[in-house]
């Protein structure tokens, strides 16, 4: 039954039905044709999927992200990044990567970051002579940093579905996010040197200028510090931090930067409602499939099978990473998290792997799926906005993707990269 259900879901999805409805239609058919389970159970699952306090972090961080854009925090982050790294070889490409890292502390969505940078930095990069493919690749792959540095919507979903501490996952994302920033800047430096891409500024603008920009963006830079402290001391749960992020963005936007008007506030709410509606419809409708998966004991069987195949944690992680990367080429990231987390978390726990460690490895690989051709939403968004064909993107993205994949394996084999901070702090 599970196989027929999966086949129908995949067929509908690749024939162009919206992903949320592909899940919904195929699982509802299961409930309606089942002799033993009343069909209302399926609808019951849809409603109860939303009645979870940890999941409230999703709408709150989506709203906070949109409010940060409306409050002027994003603009200041971009000017700061230009002063910090505009003088390095690779100029605006380095700026794009640093913007992703700085935005990572206030936003939890790679695609939102990629779309913002494609609109604001993309045209300027093309004008300075960066190739279209390279511009899109740096912006799309770089945005993965935003999804790794806390807060992160992907990690909230993983923690929610796998019953893993979202606070620990958040703190575990700090070091991998910073490593990814250094790694991508290094790769960009090598490519830029080879191609002769010029810096944005000829020289470093000076310490005074840097301090001035740091002062302008202090509210954006302080937020992740508050977030980590709040979670570290157990003062607040991630959902509560989400509500504080909303409050913080409003206060900074109204009182510090004086840019957040009533109209912009409502526009941010409206934009968030669309984002929330889109993600929640997938979550709610796929909760029906979750019921079927657990009913047929798929996780238990899969765990037994995989643990029987290999005793080696490294081999298991290698297999899972390759599997997720391959799936990520064809499936949308949200779908992968929703379908695989309930199956994989029991497997890795049984194999003795820390679920926080696995969460960062899995979510980095899953979110990277949004940047790998032929199907990837971050890639589609950036290439669509900058009118770039996928083959140009693919050619230029390969070195950057290779660098990130190397980091994913490093994270898989050296758990301390992820676990050092959570173990130290919590």
């Amino acid at each position: 039954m599970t196989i027929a259900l999966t086949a129908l879901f995949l067929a509908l999805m690749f024939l162009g039905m919206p992903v949320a409805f592909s899940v919904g239609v195929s699982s509802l058919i299961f409930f309606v044709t089942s002799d033993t389970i009343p069909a209302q159970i399926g609808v019951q699952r849809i409603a109860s999927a939303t009645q979870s306090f940890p999941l409230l972090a999703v709408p709150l961080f989506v709203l906070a992200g949109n409010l940060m854009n409306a409050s002027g925090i994003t603009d200041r982050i971009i000017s700061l990044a230009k002063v910090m790294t505009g003088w390095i070889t690779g100029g605006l490409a380095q700026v794009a990567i640093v913007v992703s890292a700085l935005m990572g502390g206030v936003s939890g969505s790679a695609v939102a970051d990629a779309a913002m940078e494609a609109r604001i930095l993309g045209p300027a990069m093309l004008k300075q002579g960066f190739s279209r493919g390279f511009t899109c690749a740096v912006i799309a792959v770089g945005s993965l940093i935003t999804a790794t540095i806390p807060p992160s919507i992907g990690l909230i979903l993983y923690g929610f579905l796998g019953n893993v501490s979202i606070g620990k996952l958040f703190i575990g994302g700090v070091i991998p996010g910073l490593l990814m920033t250094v790694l991508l800047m290094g790769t960009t430096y090598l490519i830029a040197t080879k191609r002769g891409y010029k810096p944005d500024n000829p020289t470093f603008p000076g310490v005074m200028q840097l301090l001035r920009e740091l002062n302008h963006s202090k509210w954006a830079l302080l937020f992740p510090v508050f977030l980590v402290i709040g979670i570290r001391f157990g003062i607040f749960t991630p959902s509560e931090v989400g509500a504080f992020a909303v409050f913080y963005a409003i206060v900074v936007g109204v009182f510090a930067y004086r840019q957040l008007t009533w109209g912009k506030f409502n526009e941010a709410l409206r934009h968030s409602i669309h984002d929330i509606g889109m993600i929640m419809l997938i979550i709610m409708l796929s909760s029906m499939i979750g019921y079927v998966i657990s009913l047929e004991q798929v996780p238990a069987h899969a765990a037994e099978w995989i643990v029987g195949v290999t005793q080696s944690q490294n081999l298991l992680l290698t297999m899972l990473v390759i599997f997720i990367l391959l799936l990520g080429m064809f499936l949308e990231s949200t779908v992968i998290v929703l379908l695989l987390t309930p199956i994989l978390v029991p497997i890795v726990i049984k194999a003795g792997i820390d679920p926080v460690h696995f969460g960062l490895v899995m979510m980095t690989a899953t979110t990277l799926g949004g940047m790998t051709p032929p199907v990837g939403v971050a890639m589609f968004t950036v290439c669509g906005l900058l009118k770039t064909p996928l083959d140009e993107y693919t050619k230029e993205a390969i070195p950057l993707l290779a660098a990130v994949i190397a980091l994913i394996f490093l994270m898989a084999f050296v758990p301390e990269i992820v676990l050092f901070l959570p173990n130290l702090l919590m």
Partner: protein
Amino acid sequence: MTGFYSAIARAEDVVARVCLAGCAALVFVAAVSRAMGAPVLWAIDIAMLLFIWCAFLGADAALRARQHIIIDIIVRLFPQRVQRALLITHWTLIVVFLLTLVGLGIQLTMLNVQRPMGDTDISYAYVTAAVPFGALLMALTAARQLMQFWRDPKLHFGTGGESPL
């Protein structure tokens, strides 16, 4: 009919914005009150009630704006007439699916009238009612889009929507 539908869309937008802002405000109140040692227990329950309504009204708004993610990399290679046939089939299936949800959702809501929500005296039926109500709104939106598709002989797949991750 168009006037009626755009009135629904405007009302939906206002209610959804109120639900989201209210949800954020209530979680904030709950967090502050808990930190001060006098937790307001009902705040979280109401926040989650507002959340499901915001999610369904937002899902309809996103459907109207055609923002739901579609993977069209394969179907865009098909002849235009096949693409048109697929879109019409999909949207017919979606309308049928949503109307089924309306029916099942009403039955479920009736079963939950007596059940209280969390720590409150409010009926859980207010939570489950979001399912048939939201599905009905989406069925209306999808049916209108289906009618537009039917009238458009040059219909084909556009680009997919955005992703939240």
